[in-house]
């Protein structure tokens, strides 16, 4: 299922991204990956929609598309379609040549994803071209650096950790956690590279850092690969492999993966890449190797394997990994994995396996943190359906709309999935959704 697979990297980095965001992404993947329909069409920028093609004339293709459990007949203008694939046979309507490079999302709703295939020559060309030009926002991005920052950037800065003096620590503590400053981070590294153009070591450090930013922050794989390959002594090969894969050449990526795997040790992030590439079994194998080798990063490897299984819809197996992590003896390094494993387990329970039909008739209460405090809901279930839902207690100060709108949506949809947060009352809405999920899943037989 190489189809719709948004970058998972972005979902896990930086760590403050919401739990729900991750759930939604996983849900979307699971939904889209269900292979109930044989045909698919690919848009000009590479979005793939699967369905059953019903008819076609000189202007439109008509297709049955399943979304959220319902099938709708949708019409797609031929001029917006790059390729039509019927029973595995691909028909190019706008063959190659002008394919845009996948990178940051091109526009609302247009999801680049791995656009099938590119040859090695195409990939190399793409990377070389992207590296020559800065992104269009580059000029207009203001820098806002503390006056105390030491731009001489010594490799081993004297004194202790100080994010207001040392460049690397400033990037780690100040730029990385703030998505609003990521553009600034790239511009900063570019300026450092220009400033230290006669110092090869510092130049390469700036390049590698910039490549990481293009990769982690912007999923701009072409530019990330370009700068990593430029920083000859500091190339992150797992990163480069991922770039190749995202740009549409899995073979080039696997070549690097296999080479790295032959080494006595490899970064644990390689397991994640393999999982992300859909090689679930290989990821499980590598995880087993890691555990066998007694690596102190076994928790992380298992986390990756668990995520890979969850992504592939193998919930039982995923649960197994998460539970194993939670059962590990506590130490200061695995706390993060354990917390995440707990979150993921709860996520599978609350959202993935929640089924109102399995809830006994009755009235259930639960609460979740809202804007001003706990928002308590009371949900009544009758005959496997959500009969009514109301907010029974709250201290919210404004945007009362959410207090009636969100319950109404949940009742109409008979689900906590796909409920739109009431405009400008997201926190209240989400509290109602979470509390409802808690109440229902707690009452499941």
């Amino acid at each position, binding site marked *: 299922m190489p189809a719709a697979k948004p970058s998972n990297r972005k979902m896990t980095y930086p760590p403050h991204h919401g739990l729900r965001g991750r759930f939604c992404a996983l849900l979307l993947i699971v939904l889209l990956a269900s292979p109930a329909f044989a045909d698919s069409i690919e848009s000009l*920028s590479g979005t793939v929609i699967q369905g059953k093609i019903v008819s076609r004339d000189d202007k439109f293709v008509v297709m049955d598309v399943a979304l959220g459990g319902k099938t709708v007949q949708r019409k797609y203008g031929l001029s917006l379609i790059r390729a039509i694939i019927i029973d595995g046979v691909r028909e190019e309507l706008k063959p190659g040549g002008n394919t845009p490079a996948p990178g940051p999302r091109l526009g*609302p709703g247009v999801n680049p994803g791995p656009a099938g295939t590119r040859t090695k020559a195409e990939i190399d060309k793409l990377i070389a071209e992207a590296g020559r030009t800065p992104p269009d926002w580059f000029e207009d991005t203001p820098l806002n650096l503390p006056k105390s920052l030491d731009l001489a950037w010594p490799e081993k800065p004297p004194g202790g*950790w100080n994010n207001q003096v040392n460049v690397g620590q400033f990037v780690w503590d*100040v730029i990385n956690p703030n998505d609003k400053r990521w553009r600034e981070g790239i511009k900063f590294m570019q300026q450092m590279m220009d400033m230290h153009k006669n110092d090869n070591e510092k130049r390469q450090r700036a390049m590698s850092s910039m490549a990481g930013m293009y990769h982690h922050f912007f999923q701009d794989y072409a530019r990330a690969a370009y700068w990593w390959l430029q920083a000859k002594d500091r190339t992150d090969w797992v990163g480069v492999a991922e770039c190749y894969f995202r740009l549409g050449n899995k073979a080039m990526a696997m070549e690097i993966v296999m080479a790295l795997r032959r080494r006595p040790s490899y970064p644990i992030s390689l397991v994640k890449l393999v999982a992300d590439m859909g090689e679930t079994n290989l990821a499980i194998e590598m995880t087993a190797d890691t555990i066998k080798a007694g690596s102190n990063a076994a928790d992380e490897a298992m986390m990756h394997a668990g995520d890979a299984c969850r992504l592939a819809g193998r919930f039982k197996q995923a649960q197994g990994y998460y539970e194993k992590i939670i059962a590990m003896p506590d130490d200061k390094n695995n*706390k993060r994995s354990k917390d995440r494993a707990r979150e993921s387990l709860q996520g599978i329970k609350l959202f993935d396996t929640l089924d109102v039909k399995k809830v006994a008739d009755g009235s259930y209460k639960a609460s979740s943190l809202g804007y001003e405090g706990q928002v308590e809901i009371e949900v009544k279930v009758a005959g496997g359906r959500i009969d009514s839902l109301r907010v029974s207690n709250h201290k919210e100060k404004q945007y009362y709309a959410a207090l009636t709108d969100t319950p109404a949506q949940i009742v109409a949809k008979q689900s906590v999935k796909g409920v739109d947060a009431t405009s400008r009352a997201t926190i209240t809405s989400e509290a109602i959704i979470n509390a409802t999920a808690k109440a229902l899943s707690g009452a499941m037989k």
Partner: protein
Amino acid sequence: MRLNWFLPFLRVSKKGPPRKSPGLVVRLFSIIIPKRYQSNTISGKPGPLRKLLKKISPAWSASPLRKLSQTAFFILFLVLFFYVCWPYSAKPAQVWTGWQPLEVDPDSGVTSLINELPPPASLAVGRVVYLADPTYEPPPGASEEERASSLGAFVVQSIEEKTIRLKPREKLTPQQAEAIAFAAGKLTLHEKPPGAWPVHYAEERDRKEKIAAEAILIIDPLVSLSTGLASRAWVWSLVAAGVILIICVFIPRGFCGYICPLGTLIDLFDWAIGKRVTRFRAPDDGWWVHIKYYVLLGTLIAAMFGVLISGFVSAIPVLTRGLLFIFHPLQTGAHRGWHNVPSIHIGHFVSLILFAAVLVMGFWKPRFWCKYVCPSGAVFSVFNHFRATERKVESTCINCNKCVEICPFDAIKPDFTTRVTDCTLCQTCGGACPVDAIKFVDRGNRVELKVLNDPPTHETAIGRRGFLAAGVGIAAAGIGGTAVALTIKGGARLDDPTAWRPVRPPGSVPEQEFLQMCIRCGECFKACPNDVLQPLGFEQGMEGLWSPHVVADFAGCEVSCNNCGQVCPTGAIRALSMPEKKAARMGLAIVNESTCLPYAGREACQLCVDECVAAGYDAIEFIRTGTRVDEQGNPIEGTGFISPIVREDKCVGCGLCQTRCFAINVAEKKLLDESAIIIKAGAGREDRMMTGSYVLQRKREAAAREEEMKKRFSN
């Protein structure tokens, strides 16, 4: 010139001298009102209109037009105060969710969408809507324009059951057409461009404000005169004061008789309660008859010392504050739940006692406040010397004393002539006069006047005692005003940079001028969504009493609102446009690094950051604190906490962060004793300007920073 409008035609016609040429208003009414409602001039039977008015009260039957005017202005005042200034009818821009694209015509861009339910009535044909993909995340660090990007603006072309057809207003780009056609999830329709800065509170107030909400306040002349004098600045409402004073050249003291809602309320009180309690009635005039002039003098002298005390005694502010402190909590509690009523403090009680005193004076004499104490009325009394019209009594007077009895302002002497500084031209006496001897005419009219001092008034021009009394009064006013000014001044300790500073509303003028211009009327509290602005108690002594300050523990300043400046009658809070308000700094959020949960290493918390991002200011960022390093000096992933850090170049001090930290970490979870992020005012933390643009100020600062960065990378 004849200004009679006491409608004598409603009365029974008596034999005697024929009526003198009735005024224009009277003639007009006798034409408009059907004959059967008027009194029968032949049989002498009073008409139904006359009977009805008589039933209500003598004042209504004697001068119905004035009572109508009073009623109209009183209702207008209540509507402005309790309806126009009530912000909660504002609704955020509408969003219609759950739209699945069916078809996009790549040529015309006409788009069909389907929903599970038929669209609501609000989504009507011809309406302009903006289409958006809720799953779209703008690129990190996107500018405001990028964030506001949508799938285009459309006009609703037709609605058919659950399907809606939209026609684009401008040609769709191929990217937009593709994004709509290939959208994986459901799309949303928006009333306003998605991502645009919300303005619903400002728009709603603007929609309701057909007449300026502060209209009645700005025509209280003492409000403008005293604030202008105290701050030595041009107060724009002086224009309104000028206009009303010019009008009152023609209708002397007409404000008091026809407009002033406090006067009307006092009338109501006297009618409902005052007249039933007679034991306190004062039989005669006494020492108090000239208090109002001394209060006015004292107020103006204090203003000359730069201390504003007119907020304590000026008619309309006393009324607005009284109504606010009594009825606003009730309105809030009944409409929005009692947990939304802010707590009260001693300042509220002081104001309420003052308000009650104004009413209770009515036990002494009806309208005691208006006749003898009100300094706003005294301004009109002084200006009455420039009157162009006045009440005159003709020689047909039969000395029946009816006019003296009915006059609500004690403005008729024993000889039935007029105390010109007190007469409000209310014309009640004209309506009561059985022989039509009273006329309201130009000042120079000398025709057929009755003789003066008959019966004798026993008034002398000014006797020794009178002179002495006036002297003592003036001296007391001067000394009192000065003493009050000196006592109050300095309460705010403006010279002391370490003194506590209240966080003022956005667009407040510099603190010194603010204290001198804020009339303490309470309009801003009334118009403020969620009661962010609340009256100060004695934190700044008397100098800051009842002035507005931000209570961010209770609520933060709503992003889509600029009401406080728009309803301020004196300009103490500048009337800012939304873009200016968005840029005006009222304070700076300061994180307490010893208590803030992640800083203290207690637990992860990002309430304030989420709040600031949701509000659209992006002024609180993350910073990693407590990062641990390995042997090589490299940071260990996942160590430390992500803590909040405020960007001084972006924070406007709205207080939303503090509200949230307080509500959750202090009130709900009881983790902290006080919010770990607090808005503080003071030099360098707020913009306090009399004039100039806050937007330009921010731009200048940004340019300076850019220049400085360039310099650093150039060597």
